Structures are given as C-alpha cells and as structure tokens.
C-alpha cells in the first residue's frame, strides 16, 4: 500500500504532466526516498495507482541507474568510474573502499550500513576522484579522506 504521504507527493508531480503514466519515474523515486528501494510490492502498488501494467513499469524501473530494484544499505556510496576519475586514481579508491568495507561493487555490508555502487561521471572532474554518499558529494578523494567521510555515516 502506498502511504498517504507518498500518494500526495506523487499527485503533486503528476499535475506537471498531461498524461498520468508520465509521472511513473518521479513516483518510483518518491517511493524509494521513503523506503530505500522499489520492491515488487511497491512496483505493483505504483502501477495500480497510475493505471499502468506492472511489466511496463518494471521495464522503466530497470532502465534507470538511480532506481533500486533490490534492497540497499542505510547509506549508498556511488563511486564515479568515468574517465577523469579513472585517470586520477579511481582503481585505488575502489580497492580501498572494497577492502575497508569488505564488499565489491553492487554489494551491501553485512551490518547493512553501506551499499557500494558504481556511477557514471558526477560532473566533478576538476576535483577527481569523486564519490557520492547519499546526497553528499565527496571530491579530491584519497584513502584517508574516504575513511574520514565514511565515519560520519552511521
């Protein structure tokens, strides 16, 4: 069941489009903001609310990088693997994160604290290498800076 709050947020966005199903990406983002990810149940509820088929909605969901169809940890780390960050030391940063957290890309720590995901260019190339943790951008990374940043997410 979608919550009243989720429905009212979806309806506010839906007013921006002439067709109801156009809001489906916003709707999934809204539900994800409340629940962390988009489960099969959420997908069914959103599809029913918007009068779409579940299959159509899932084909959209799986197309987009920022819509999570699997559960994620309390905090999502997105490390930029595009060209400027790659030149400036992405491999070392990913290895450091992997060692420190004990997980690879696409995985979640056993305490459910962090999920590590790759992301394309974050538009922060002059301060590469870069990563986002939840809504925060961290740039000019080195292993010590990564360690300090991670400590602030509990």
């Amino acid at each position, binding site marked *: 069941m979608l919550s009243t709050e989720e429905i009212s947020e979806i309806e506010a966005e839906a007013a*921006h*489009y*002439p*067709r109801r*199903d*156009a*809001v*489906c*990406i*916003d709707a*999934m*983002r809204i539900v994800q903001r409340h629940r962390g990810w988009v489960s099969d149940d959420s997908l069914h509820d959103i599809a029913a609310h918007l009068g779409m088929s579940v299959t159509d909605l899932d*084909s*959209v969901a799986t*197309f*987009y*990088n*920022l*819509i999570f169809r699997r559960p994620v940890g309390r905090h999502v780390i*997105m490390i930029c*693997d*595009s*060209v*400027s960050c*790659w*030149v*400036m030391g992405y491999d070392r940063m990913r290895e450091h994160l992997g060692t420190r957290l004990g997980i690879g890309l696409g995985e979640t720590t056993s305490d459910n604290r962090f999920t590590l995901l790759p*992301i*394309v*260019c*974050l*538009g*922060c*190339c*002059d*301060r*590469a290498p870069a990563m*986002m943790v939840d*809504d925060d*951008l961290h740039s000019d990374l080195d292993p010590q800076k990564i360690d300090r940043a991670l400590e602030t997410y509990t």
Partner: protein
Amino acid sequence: MTPVTDKPLTKNMRPDGSVVDIRAYEQADGYQAVRKVLHGGMTPNAVTDAVKDANLRGRGGAGFPTGQKWSFVPLGNNAPTPTYLICNADEMEPGTFKDRLLLERDPHQLIEGMIIAGFAIEADVAYIFLRGEYVLAAERLSRAIAEAYDAHYLGKNILGSDYSLELYLHLSGGRYMCGEETGLLNALEGKRANPRSKPPFPPVVGLFGKPTVVNNVETLCCVPHIINHGAAWFHALGRTHDAGTKLFGASGKVKRPGLWELPMGTTIREILEEHAGGMRDGVTFRGLLPGGASTDFVTEEHLDTPMDFTAMAKIGSRMGTGTMIVLDDQTCPVGMTWNLMHFFAQESCGWCTPCWSGLGWVERILTSMEDGQGQPGDLDKLASQAKMWGPGATFCALAPGAAEPLQSALKYFRDDFERHIREKRCPWR
C-alpha cells in the same frame, strides 16, 4: 581588470560558492531582458532573430544554431498546443562539469533565459530536466523557481503581459541516454530513454507529440545577455565567428584543474597552459579529449587550434562541451580507451545493433588487450567497429560519439596498442 560584461555567464557568481538569490540577481540587472522582451514590444520572431544574429550555437556539444532551432516551431493561433521548452540539464557526458556551475550558482540566469526562449517559441510549459545526482542544483533551482513565481516572472500573465509560462523541475532516474534529445523526451514521458526516429524533429513533433525545443543550460544562459546587449556585442566577446564566451574546463593531471569563462576561440594551448597551469610536475602531455568522452583525441600538433565548433571540426575533432580531459604519459592510452568504451557499452540503451553489439565487443577486445591477451588482428577489428558505428548507422549519436575517441586513439596511440599485443601485457601496469 576586464569589464564584467566580458564574462556575462559568471559575472554574478560569488567566490564562496553561495547562490545568487532573486534579490541579488535583480540588483545585478537580472530580469531586465525579460522586461525588455515583454514590455518593450518585442515579437517572438524578433527575439529569435536577435539570437540568430548573435550566431548562438548550442553549448550541449553539437553546436546547432539556436535561433534556427527555434524558428522550426510553428507559431500563431493555428499552431498545435501546448508548445514545450525543455532545458537539458542532464549533464552526464564524462569529463563535463560546466552546467553544474551555472545551475548551482546563478539559477535565475537560467530561468530568465528560459522565459525569453519560451516567449520566442510561444511555449506554454517548460521543464528543466536535471540529472538526479545534482542534489544541490535541485535544491537551489527549486527555490529559485518558487522565487520567480512569487515575483510574477513565471505563471499566468508574466509581469502583466499576455505571455504565460509554467516551469517545472524534473529529476532524472539516471541514464546517459537521457541527455540525447529524443531519449530525453521519452524519459520525460515516463518511458525508457530510447531515441526516436527523426524526422519528424522535436520542434514539430516532440514531447507528448507537441512542438518542443530542447536547449542546453549554457545555451539558455547566454540568451538574456544577447537580448540586453545585442548581437554585435555577443560577436565581439568571441575571438572567432562562433560568437560569445564559453565555459572551458580541464581535468586530468594538470596543475590547476578547473573551469573558466573565456572567449570562444581561445586556443587549446592557452586553456591548457595558462589557465590549467600546464602538466603536473613529473608527467608529460600526450593528448586530450577536447570536450567530453565523445570527442576525438587531439595531440601536441593541434594545441594552437582555437576552441570553437568550426576550427575543431577542421582538425578532425569537435569542441563538444568544451571541458577537456587530459591524457599524460603515466596513464595508459589503451586503458583510457577501455574506460571510455566501458562507459558507452554500459550506457547503450540496446536499441540499435551496431551500438549494443559493437560496443560490448570492443570493450571485451580492449579488456583482453589490457590483460595481455591481445591478438594480432584486434586493431583491424577495432577500426572496423568504429566505422560501423556511423554516423547514420544508428538512431542517435551515442555510438558515433563512441567512435570518436576510439578511432583517434587508434590513430595517435597506435604504437601503444601494438605494444600491448606484442608484449602480451599492459606496459603501464
């Protein structure tokens, strides 16, 4: 000190990175161009003509003449309704970080540009299509849009005129294809961001089947200044016929990576050596991608080329987004090409065979080369793939864009590719 009008796009920006709010924007003559258009009796065609005369070319990378794009939209009482204006703020081209600055630091400049562009094409509804990762830009744009509504720059009968415009912010679900003009339209309709067949072109049949103009952030930000100061002034800002200023940037192992508003036509060398400070100590320049991942490498021999759409095309590359990615001698050119092909293969939407099939194949060949498994015929395979990607072989520019760094890497760094195969290893590992 150069007069402020030499850097119109960044003149209001504060050193501390804080946002220019509506009051500060108005105090810096902000929204005067909207007043001039709406209260000065300008017609939509007059606005479009002013932008045409200024030779404003699209700053998203393709360089299409903006006024010409606007002129394709049907106007008047018999035109289909509604007409849409979309700002493409889906800055996802690897190595590109220019629109972020404009969005975060001076959002009202963009909104003013959109109101004027909207008036020129008689748009009823406008969207800013923003990539989902630009969280700070989203916060600041939302606030700026609310401020603009409160001050009657948006909504019904703007500043008491007959013109009305609704402006909405859409946050993307995240995919490189959303930056492609027709992929963006599908994304905004709540679909997968596959490209559409053209023609018909979006100015005639676009969002929800209605006339639609899609313009880049930096392009729209130029518009108020052209209206305020005129085409001759805009031409005088640039050093070449591709008029105006341009946000140029540099990333990679240069001394001072960054972003600078400079005259269009500033040479690559000046950007690289004077503004970015040249290479870091201990590394040597080998080449650069002039404007994002989907532009051809250039090398030492090209450094005195002016960065503009025309001159960069003449040397077999493109200015693209104007933010250059520098390759140094401590970085493997094959590895860098692998990284680029990995990106394009991952972001291919899967619609056209040369793209989904070819990019994956090329990525695998480059992976094997990096792992010491390269074969003698590999370079021919890579070259033939780059040819097969177009232009003209696919619906959109993703694969032709991917071909640019691949074909030019094979041209300028051929020895390095051959060495990987011959020595059965990556010499940089």
